[in-house]
């Protein structure tokens, strides 16, 4: 069973390259739906490899966006690690991240489904407000509040609020940087677990399982390299942020 799925995924992952995704959740959902899976930790563990394979190709992606992908990748790595080594202890925060991801994906999936209905209605049989052709007979009626000083100060406020180029929010940058450490310690934790549980692996599947975990560790290493790439780039990359709401993303 597993072998079949692997083959199918590889074929699909190849096709997926040409598509564009709105973000990491869009990509993740696509991977899960292509395999006709429900959203849970099992299916997330299954698509982790595909997801990582995708972000490896994102060399040219703007820093802001690839950071979002890498943050999701880190949670997937936790899920995958846990699925390979059930003995692995996750912290409360890590468990929380996993659950958040599942919830977000479920909400996102439901919204995407609903959006098909929205698209079907949009502009189809619109209700029209009155056109603005209606002639007006203007009566000069100024507002005492409107003075030259007021006008200038309003415009200055407005100019101050215009969207500007700003650095990627500190929160995200820090998250990505700490991710590098996280993957480092995760590698150590898995290696540690592996040595401990090596003896307990059942004879028949022993080789198989060890090989698999070793290749997974190699993958962690690749992600780590990607993170280094991203954090280096962040020093000179800018992205746009809405001024009033900087620094509130929740992950």
């Amino acid at each position, binding site marked *: 069973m597993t072998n079949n799925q692997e083959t199918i995924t590889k074929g699909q992952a190849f096709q997926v390259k040409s598509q564009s995704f709105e973000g990491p959740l869009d990509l993740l959902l696509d991977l899960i739906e292509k395999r006709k899976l429900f959203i849970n930790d099992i299916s997330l563990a299954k698509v982790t490899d595909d997801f990582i394979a995708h972000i490896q190709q994102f060399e040219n992606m703007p820093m802001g966006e690839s950071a979002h992908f890498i943050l999701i990748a880190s949670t997937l790595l936790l899920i995958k690690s846990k699925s390979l080594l059930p003995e692995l202890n996750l912290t409360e925060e890590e468990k929380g991240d996993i659950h*958040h991801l599942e919830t977000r994906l479920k909400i996102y999936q439901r919204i995407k489904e609903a959006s098909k209905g929205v698209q079907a209605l949009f502009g189809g049989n619109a209700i029209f407000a*009155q056109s603005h052709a209606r002639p007006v007979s203007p009566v000069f009626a100024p507002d005492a509040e409107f003075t030259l000083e007021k006008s200038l100060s309003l415009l200055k406020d407005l100019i101050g609020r215009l969207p500007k180029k700003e650095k990627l929010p500190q929160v995200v940058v820090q998250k990505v940087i700490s991710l590098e450490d996280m993957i480092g310690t995760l590698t150590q934790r898995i290696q540690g677990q592996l040595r401990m549980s090596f003896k307990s692996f059942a004879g028949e599947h022993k080789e198989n399982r060890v090989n698999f975990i070793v290749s997974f560790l190699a993958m962690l290493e690749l992600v780590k390299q990607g993170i280094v790439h991203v954090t280096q780039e962040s020093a000179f990359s800018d992205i746009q942020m809405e001024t009033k*709401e900087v620094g509130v993303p929740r992950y």
Partner: protein
Amino acid sequence: MNPAPTSNLPQQLEAILFWKAEPVTFKKLAQLLSIEKTDTTEGVKVTEEQIKTGLIELEKTLQGRGLSLVQTDAEVMLGTAKELSPLIEKLTKEELTRDLGKAGLETLSIILYQGPISRADIDYIRGVNSQFIIRNLLIRGLVERIDNPKDARSFLYKTTLDLLAHLGISKIEELPEYDKVRADIESFKNQQSTDVVDKSNQATDATIGA
């Protein structure tokens, strides 16, 4: 001199909405239809509840006619009947915008089914920065920004009457599966807080070669 406002409230509402030709809040309508007490006349106080009742009646008289109402929980607008959409579109000479783009459609759907909602929450659901797409929707008048009652530093985004009109629906509840979608999402959120995190038993399924 004025007739008692409650007797012909639907007519008065129709006239105001026609004349204003833009969304009018229930509050404003109540205010416009109330009459201040003077030395010679008794005042009349019209409540928002009476406005809502009047609008229900007006909606009935508009059945099968060329006009229809579009409303949210706070404001209302008069528009053409959606059955006559092709006819009016022919007059406008403008192509109706039908394409929103993937990001626009996603963001609009989130605001329709989950609004009023903060940008942080929209970003959380989409997993990406939605700043530009929200600005785009604001400029197009499809969504509007209101203050966040829980946090003075941020805003909430909600559906405009123009958006409902563009979708050809009179109320947001007419969206496909409106209640169902909201209930489902609510249950996903609750599940998260009540669920026991330890699922390691199931996770073994996904072991080797998964």
